[in-house]
């Protein structure tokens, strides 16, 4: 179910944070979520955490999905979570995907990343997770 009782659809920002340009996965996730009925804002590449948070607030999204395959996830993902909190939008969920070694998953979850989707994940898993865990923030 992609709508709340008031009829507003869940809005998502999907993008790539950092210098990593491998966007095959991010594009597939963006398209799968759009095809599943969510509203998707796709930022494209080379977003800084600051740019992601600014766009997320401007676009009034309910959750942010970020792809990182460069190994910089431990720096970049928590920074996004912290910036959202500092800018008064701690209720925007952050989920991530990419090359995230198993041992980094728990620390990232503790740092406030809601979910991490690693290689081998199907698009259905991501869609189901968003459906279950993300609600529209707007009243």
């Amino acid at each position: 179910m992609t709508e709340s009782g008031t009829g507003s659809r869940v809005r998502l920002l999907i993008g790539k944070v950092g210098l990593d340009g491998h966007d095959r996965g991010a594009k597939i996730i963006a398209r799968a979520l759009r095809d599943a009925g969510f509203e998707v804002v796709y930022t494209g590449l080379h977003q800084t955490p600051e740019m992601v948070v600014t766009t997320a607030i401007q676009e009034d999204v309910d959750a942010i999905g970020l792809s990182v395959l460069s190994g910089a996830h431990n720096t970049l993902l928590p920074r996004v979570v912290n910036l959202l909190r500092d800018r008064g939008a701690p209720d925007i969920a952050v989920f991530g995907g990419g090359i995230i070694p198993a041992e980094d998953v728990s620390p990232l979850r503790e740092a406030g990343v809601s979910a991490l989707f690693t290689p081998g994940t199907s698009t259905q898993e991501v869609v189901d997770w968003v459906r279950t865990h993300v609600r529209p923030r707007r009243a």
Partner: protein
Amino acid sequence: MSRKGSDGPSRSRKEWELNTLGPSLAKAPERQGPFSTVSSLPIERLYSAEDLPAGGEADLGLPGEFPYTRGIHPTMYRTRLWTMRQFSGFGSAADTNKRFHYLLSHGQTGLSVAFDLPTLMGRDSDDLLAEGEVGREGVAIDTLADMETLFSGIPLGGVSTSMTINSPASILFAMYLAVAEKQGVPLERLEGTIQNDILKEYIAQKEWIYPPRPSLRIITDIMAFCARSVPKWNTISISGYHIREAGSTAVQELAFTLADGIGYVQAGIEAGLDVDVFAPRLSFFFNSHNDFFEEIAKMRAARRIWARVMRDRFHAKNPASWKLRFHTQTAGCSLTAQQPYNNVVRVTIQALAAVLGGTQSLHTNSLDETLALPTEDAVRIALRTQQVIAEESGVANTVDPLGGSYFVEALTNKVEADAMAIIGKIDAMGGIVAAIEQGFPMKEIADASYLYQQQTDRGEKCIVGVNRYRADADPPVEILKIPLEVEIEQKRRLADVRAGRSAAAIDRDLDAIAKAAKDGSNLMPHILQAVRDYATVGEICGAMKAVFGEYREVAVF
């Protein structure tokens, strides 16, 4: 409907279908289809002589002769095996130098450098955007000092080096030349390659800085410079690997790569260069993915198409201009994080395909590369994979062992025809730069990758260990970790280099680069001078960015 008159063999396919195939299918139907390649190219039950056009021998040719379907050399691996060239780089230049020595000591025959993301994007290790990224995807190189460390103990006159670097290729190439100078190796002796293939960056790898036209100008400057001063150097590695990794089909990989090649040849000619001078130094780089025969067909078709493009479209007279020389890397995107030891099997099949496809140079991925950059143990197995193929399997004993196979020749013809259709489409759009500006290759790739994802999500395409044959738990695999100290140390080293050099020389050098960028004179001598004075990657790229501007992508998904 008549039975054959005797118990002898069928005299035609129709007879075979009627008398042998039909009854067999009635008893034991085939597995559920479709029987298609990983790229969804349909594959027939059987191929025989009637699947090949009459007079096809001219298309096939002999090895070392136009159109080179069977190989660019008459003796191929009987004279010299492909170069075993493992793409390597992580952490600091000292870390990577150690890996280079390890691989050379284990029998690798060429070097290949992987740079970190800040370096690939033309940024220094202390750039704001470099935070968290230094040394993670490759080696951090900021100045000539790092490059000297990178090749410490490695005489550059005795080994060929490939450097995977695109937008800042001119700078890293200049650094390599400066190291050679310091070693006393004449530039004319240097052998190697810079990837320097900006067109595929816009299409797939996305490591751009400047817009297309100034980027092509830098490339033609490098072509002209090398023709004069570094004649054995491959100025571009025109790449399909990344296009395939981004999700294209095999045919798209081939078509977009060769279309890029056509674009570079046109750019060289428009820059006033003699095609027979620069074309022999263009090289190529293909992916080797899972579907064994599709990859072999792709590589054979590549040679044939390129030979015709160079001789008949561009009227090159030098046979060296017609010969497509290529490096291959096994498909990173085919590897799984689940049951990672299965990746050794995948890489073996993919490497074998590349050898049977006639590659000049080969990188085999390591089993742990879905998880991290390779450990020593993992990369040794990858290198041994090549050595087992070379020394134990027997496939290098004869030239083009699969030549004449009905299936392989039919598939080669099919891949060629399909790729030519796409190249024709791109020509009709006005060439590859126009096609890129219209977003055409990117959209094709996004669609192909989405289709494949749907196929795997639905279980129509099997990925062993992921959507079938799963295991509850995987054996732990020790992975390579890049500690944060790498970034801290690299920034300190960079600060030391900045402190120890002549600021006046740097200012002069960067001004000279900006001037050449504006007035069109060759950039390379000025970049070479700047790196000798220990200007940084970021400083030199910044000087050019100020003149050329920055590329902005319109993201499509």
